[in-house]
């Protein structure tokens, strides 16, 4: 019991919504498990579901890391469907999470940070949108700053 409380007290809870398995792996590799409890969702529906489950368990995520293209595909047709909002992309997922929890702490980490799509994510409520070019080191550093 004491151990669980200590775990809850010191570890930051993160939900990473990204369809790229390698990105999920690298985020976990760069953020020490001693400080972060990281939950992975590979599409928007899973992301919303996980956020709800964490809330119900009393484990409200301290930070949600959101990609934009959540198609799980490398085809450009699927990319365009996501971009046009025909499927549950990062923007729609963030909207659903914000509906559930208006105080949700969301940041973007995406290849489209500097495009109109990234702007839409910010307008939806993401506190900032980081581009992939900052690398995982840069990303990890920024996350630690935000959650310090």
């Amino acid at each position, binding site marked *: 019991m004491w151990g669980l409380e200590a775990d809850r007290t010191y570890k930051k809870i993160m939900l990473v919504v990204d369809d790229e398995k*390698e*990105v999920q792996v*690298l985020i976990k590799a760069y953020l020490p498990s001693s400080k972060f409890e990281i939950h992975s969702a590979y599409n928007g529906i899973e992301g919303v579901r996980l956020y709800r489950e964490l809330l119900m368990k009393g484990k409200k995520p301290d930070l949600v890391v959101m990609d934009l293209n959540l198609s799980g595909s*490398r085809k*450009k047709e699927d990319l365009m469907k996501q971009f046009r909002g025909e499927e549950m992309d990062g923007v729609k997922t963030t909207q659903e999470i914000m509906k559930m929890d208006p105080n949700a702490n969301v940041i973007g980490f995406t290849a489209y940070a500097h*495009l109109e*799509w990234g702007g839409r994510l910010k307008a939806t409520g993401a506190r900032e949108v980081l581009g992939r*070019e900052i690398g995982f080191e840069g990303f990890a550093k920024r996350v630690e700053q935000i959650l310090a």
Partner: protein
Amino acid sequence: MVELHESILDNLDEVIHLVNRDMKILFVNKAIEKLSKGKIKKDEMVGKNLYDIFPFLKDTGVDKEYERVFSTGESLKTEERTEYHGSKIYTVTSKIPIKDGGGKVTQVITIMRDITDLKKVEETLKELADEYSKIVELAQEGICIDDENEKMIFVNDAFAKIVGYEKSELFGKSIFDLVGENGKNILESQTEKRRAGKSSRYEITVYRKDGTPRVLLISATPLIVDGKYAGSISVNLDITERKRMEETIKLEREQLLSIFEGIDEPVYVADPETYEILYVNEVMKKSFGKDIVGKKCYEVFQKLDAPCDFCTNEKILGKNFGNTYVWEWQNQVNKRWYRCMDKGIRWPDGRKVRFEMAIDITDKVKAEEEMKRALDEERQFKLETSHYFFNPICIAKGYLELAKEEGDIDKINKALDAINRVEKVVKNIVTKGEIKE
């Protein structure tokens, strides 16, 4: 026999009575009862003095008339108006002396005819004539009567005012004296018509006494007496101001159309009630044909059988009159795009009509479409580039950084996979011109 005479006399409409020198009534027929509307009975009169029954006869000098007939022995015919029991009665009376063997007048027979109804008709006719005369005098139109030599024998005040003369100055003058050379030709032709018994209406310029011209619209009718031309009567309307206004309107119309003609874009004007095309400029004629004025706008411009369901008339007419409505539309006949500027304007004849100027924006629309397509392509290019390059490069960098620290072959392989992904995309771009993995 006496009874027979009395019966005949009683059936006459004229009142007949007989008096002696003492003015005693010896006989009166039944007509007196009708004349007095039953107030006097014939039997009550006989044997009485005429002046006792009709005392007012003395006041009106009738007693003197009887004295004259008795003394001169000559008949007398008079016309009287009598107020009797509140009614006016008009009569014509003949007093005829009856003489004895010695030539002395012993009795006078009076025959009195009631002409009240006739008089009333006369009075009504006179009143009507007076009224008519007043109407003629007060009429705004100049009324003029000429004799058979075209000399004026009557003009009303309005006619004198129009031509700027005193009425007295016009009598004996001819309308020929008031016109110029051109006017004289018109008048000669018109006079010929009149002499042939024909009425007509025509316009002519007359010159007032002070020399200023006035345009008259004359409606003239011949006066035919006993089958002969006796002159003419004319009603003269001063239409100078109207003509001036017509000229102004004509000028304004010409100016307006000249402006429309100078516009290099299609311009048309249509009647919003009938959809009839009232005007098209040359540019429009080149596109839709030369003979389209008078045809329906929807038939010519849209090839429709009924008014267009997108007609903008209500946006520029009624309470919106004067507003300009701008809209863009692709004409389904020639497939070109237009920016239409519609406005309700007042046509020179006073009608509120639809004006439309359509600027051909086909090239602009195409350029905009081209630009939009280019922007879409650019956006897609950026998205795809970000998708296919940033992700694998980021992953490769991530693993290489880790491998550097840990000397882990597995991580180096993963980084190489990510780099291979980028390499594949680059190869596809170079060989196929496509961004894909």
